[in-house]
């Protein structure tokens, strides 16, 4: 099988190894050392690291710059790009720049609406003008067109073709549920090579959606990496269940953390169990781990799940 961008992530998946991606959120300041510190903390634990793009519509160091810092620290980034802040001209220009800097994994997402503002914890910029010139599906198609045909969205030719390993997000349990598998199929048809999902806690419900995707042959066309957000308390699970669209937390899981004498330790245990449970599902090719504002927990979780050392490919 010929590789599209020969990134470490792509090679791990091509080798049939269970892939692992983690997340590094850029700081709300110009501090390269903060990024380097997080990178050093997580080095060797994952095959690639997602660099978020102004998540929850809060201004942070750009994903391109942070991804380059992570690359320089010897880790492989997955540069996220949302449709909220750039039109198709800026997107393609930034993608060419990213490619020139050696960034090869790109994840295309709609992005939280500018009204999100960190869920009310920060002011954010609710008065900003959202762009949404193209949607995430169209951005995937643009990425694929640049890579495979050497063309801009307009049809103008690029002087050379950027190599991208193209990622997309999937919210399998969001309404309308009957359309979510179709939406996954569309993303794969548009250009997605790998898929990272919204956090999975209800493995049974996820398995049902995944089975449909598997039956349609989608799990052979793109590598699906279920997302898991490390839970640290019952309150955090309740918050996500009630406030984060597409995240469904079974009541017994919340009760389990509530009853735990050390919720943090229990959360680590839960994460390890979730990794093992989704790993059993046909069509799952890896996991995407997020320990939001608590990246150090991944140093415990990943070895405990038997996922170290990472494959050398």
């Amino acid at each position, binding site marked *: 099988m010929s590789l599209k961008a020969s990134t470490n992530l792509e090679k791990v998946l091509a080798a049939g190894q269970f892939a692992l991606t983690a997340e590094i959120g850029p700081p709300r300041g110009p501090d390269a050392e903060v990024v380097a510190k997080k990178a050093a903390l997580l080095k060797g634990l994952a095959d690639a690291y997602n660099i978020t793009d102004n998540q929850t519509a809060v201004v942070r160091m750009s994903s391109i710059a942070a991804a380059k810092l992570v690359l320089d620290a010897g880790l492989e980034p997955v540069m996220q790009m949302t*449709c*909220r802040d750039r039109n*198709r001209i800026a997107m393609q220009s930034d993608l060419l720049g990213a490619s020139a800097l050696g960034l090869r994994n790109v994840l295309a997402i*709609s*992005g*939280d*609406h500018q*009204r*999100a503002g960190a869920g009310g914890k920060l002011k954010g910029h609710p008065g900003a003008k*959202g762009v*949404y*010139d*193209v*949607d*995430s*599906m*169209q951005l995937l*198609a*643009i990425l694929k067109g640049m890579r495979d045909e050497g063309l801009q*969205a307009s049809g103008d030719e690029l002087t050379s073709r950027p190599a991208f390993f193209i990622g997309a*997000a*999937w*919210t399998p349990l*969001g*309404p*309308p549920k*009957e*359309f979510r598998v*179709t*939406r996954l*199929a*569309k993303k794969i*048809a*548009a250009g997605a090579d790998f898929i990272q999902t*919204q956090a999975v806690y209800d493995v049974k419900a996820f398995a049902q959606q995944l089975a449909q995707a598997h039956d349609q042959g989608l799990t052979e066309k793109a590598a699906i990496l279920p997302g898991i957000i490390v839970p640290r308390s019952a309150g955090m699970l309740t918050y996500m269940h009630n406030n984060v*669209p*597409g995240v469904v937390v079974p009541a017994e899981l919340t009760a389990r953390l509530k009853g735990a004498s050390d919720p943090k330790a229990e959360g680590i245990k839960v994460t390890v169990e979730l990794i093992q449970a989704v790993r059993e599902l046909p069509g799952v090719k890896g996991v995407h781990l997020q320990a939001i504002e608590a990246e150090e927990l991944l140093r415990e979780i990943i070895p405990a799940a038997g996922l170290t050392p990472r494959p050398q490919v």
Partner: protein
Amino acid sequence: MITAEWKPIPELVGYLRGHQKVLLLGCATCVAECAAGGEREVETLAPLLRMALAKEGSPVEIITGTLERQCEPEFIEPFVPAAEGVDAIMSLACGIGMQLLAERFPQIAFYPGVNTTSLSLREAPGLWTTRCAACGDCVLGETFGLCPVSRCAKSLLNGPCGGTRTSGSCEISEDTPCIWNLIVERAKARGQLDRLSAVRRPKDWSNSPAGGPKRMLREDLRP
């Protein structure tokens, strides 16, 4: 209809402070339908402004009127005598009517009394919701008659983002339905979900406000 909303009273008072005599003009069409700038609103707002200005020691004489349609020159003409005696005009019409009025009386200070907000439907008494973004490239034929350009917070063209809430609402507000949820529902009811399975190409925004000010010329209708 075109909808509008009153600007905050302190902003209006700020505009009128220092003027002697002001003509407050409403419009009996869209802005009357959405209860922002019709005769009733003009007659409600005028005393509020008089009181607020008098209270801060800068009383202003405010005379009122309401045109049938502020966006048609012939309806403005009867107000020419009234306008000649004032040193400011405030309009409660939409931005179109406002500008025609300001154009007719360029020598008189002009102020907006409302913010023009949307192309909406009166969905229920006292509730208006957006139906159109005047994007210049209508997609309703692909989306079962429901507009994702104006009714999806992200103007998505390929289905719902991950922000659809369990209730079927949009991530921006529990009060805003996810239009893609409704589009999928309607497609399903029609037995045509497959019509939503193709990837829809990026939209051509050049015929929308993003393409620059619109100038629609119909040679066949020119004098």
